[in-house]
């Protein structure tokens, strides 16, 4: 479904992505792991067209490198940014409406369903998004992207700074997304959720993929974890 081949990206003169290769198949949950600053977030931003890509990015066998963000989103690629960029002055419901595409009738997600899954959001449907707690904002941000009915959703550090109970909710939502046949690229620093739900994992270091495997194989590879993941 997503094929990234020899992807390079620059911030000014610094060479951030130095030939990234990975792929995601339909309905698959894939995690992209690594320490801070190795280029995980830049990888998803580059796929989304926020950072100028060099190399090949194919989504559903169509080259998307060089396309604009909104075109890529409309092809069915969803992105939940790390900074939980909700619109603080708009209500929870309006935030969700913004995620909808113009043709929302065929979407596998509806606003009422989201409120059913997350009663906290439902109770605050008409409240400004800015007053929600960090965990609620994260949920809102994920639900908002889902409203656009993506076939692949890229989620950047959804559990960062959240209480363990909320982290569990995030994991449940990720499972629900996968159950509905949506592929997931989960970008994480910690292993906890990633090991539990992923089909496959990639580990990044210095702007490249340094390891590819399954949760089991990564647990067995003590050297990889020590060199690239543990702090």
């Amino acid at each position, binding site marked *: 479904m997503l094929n990234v081949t020899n992807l390079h990206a620059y911030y000014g003169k610094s060479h951030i992505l130095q030939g990234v290769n990975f792929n995601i198949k339909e309905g698959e949950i894939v995690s992209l792991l690594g320490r801070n600053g190795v280029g995980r977030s830049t990888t998803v931003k580059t796929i*989304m067209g*926020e950072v100028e890509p060099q190399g090949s990015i194919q989504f559903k066998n169509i080259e998307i490198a060089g396309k*604009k*963000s*909104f075109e890529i*989103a*409309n092809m069915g690629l969803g*992105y939940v*940014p790390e900074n939980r*960029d909700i*619109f603080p*002055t*708009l209500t929870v419901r*309006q935030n969700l*409406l*913004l*995620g909808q*595409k113009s043709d929302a009738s065929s979407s596998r997600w509806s606003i009422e369903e989201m409120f059913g899954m997350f009663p906290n959001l439902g109770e605050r449907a008409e409240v400004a998004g800015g007053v929600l707690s960090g965990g609620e904002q994260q949920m809102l941000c994920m639900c*908002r*992207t889902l409203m*656009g009915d993506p076939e692949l959703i890229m989620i950047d550090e959804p559990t960062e700074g959240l209480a363990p109970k909320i982290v569990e909710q995030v994991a449940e939502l990720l499972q629900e997304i996968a159950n509905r046949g949506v592929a997931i690229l989960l970008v994480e620093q910690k292993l906890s959720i990633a090991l539990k739900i992923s089909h496959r994992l990639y580990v990044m270091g210095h702007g490249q993929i340094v390891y590819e495997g399954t949760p089991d194989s990564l647990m067995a590879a003590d050297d990889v974890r020590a060199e690239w993941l543990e702090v």
Partner: protein
Amino acid sequence: MLEVFIFATLNGLVTGLLLFMLASGLTLIFSMMGVLNFAHASFYMLGAYFAYSISLYFGFWSGLIFAPIIVGVLGALVERYGLRRVHQQGHVAELVFTFGLAFLIEEAVQFFWGADTKNYQSPDLLDFPLFTLFGQEFPAYRGFMIGISVAIFIGLYYVLTKSRIGIIIQAAITHPHTVSNLGHNVPLIFMGVFGVGSALAGVAGVIAGPVLTTFPGMAVVLGSIVFVIVVIGGLGSLAGAFIASILIGLLQSYAIASNLGMPDLLNLLGLEFGRDHPLTDLWTLTLPQIAPILPFLLLVLVLIFRPTGLMGKREQ
């Protein structure tokens, strides 16, 4: 005294609403681009001139409908093929671009329509007194100006806060990347907002042309006050722009209507100066005389004591 006050208030309201029609578009465009569009008042002037030309053949009402549409399309084209390219060169380049455009439009207006004042008339249909109070008539056309301004603002408010496109615009102004990642064509939205903002300025030109006279300097006259308004209101704040527009409209209107002057103030203080005093011009100043500079005086005071304007947020 009461009739002076009532008429000054109504006239101030007419001016204030007219100013807000320009200031609202300018504020929206500023929030989007991050720079003031110096050519904004030029679109107001174009509105008046297009409406004048259309009215010669098809009457005032056709001008009211078609002139803003033409101006809106022109504005959208300026954004699409001018500003969007210049934007990559940074804010200074954008500012200089809009500055140049303002001069260009003024020259073009003189080239096509001439330097003289046009005889652009309000429609005969509205050529009657709306009401008579204390023997003084309030023209129906001014009532019409208030009505159409209020109607447009209610419509604009409704679209911006209640409709899906309005919500997308609000979000795109503050979070363009995020909105784009959700699949919305942000550049197209910006072009649309620029077009509608220009069209609003066009409407203001159409309805102000017959009252404030249609001449090549009209953009400069009103434009400078509109810039004062967006600064006083707080750059980027629609509510601030509204308050400042009404405030300036009323302030100017009251100043013109009053017959107070320095002599009254001096009398109050018990001072008296002879006619042959070297500063006679200063001692005899009246409020109506200084009315035109009041907005700029307010601008200077606001910038000194409240640099963010009435409703503006402090820049990060």
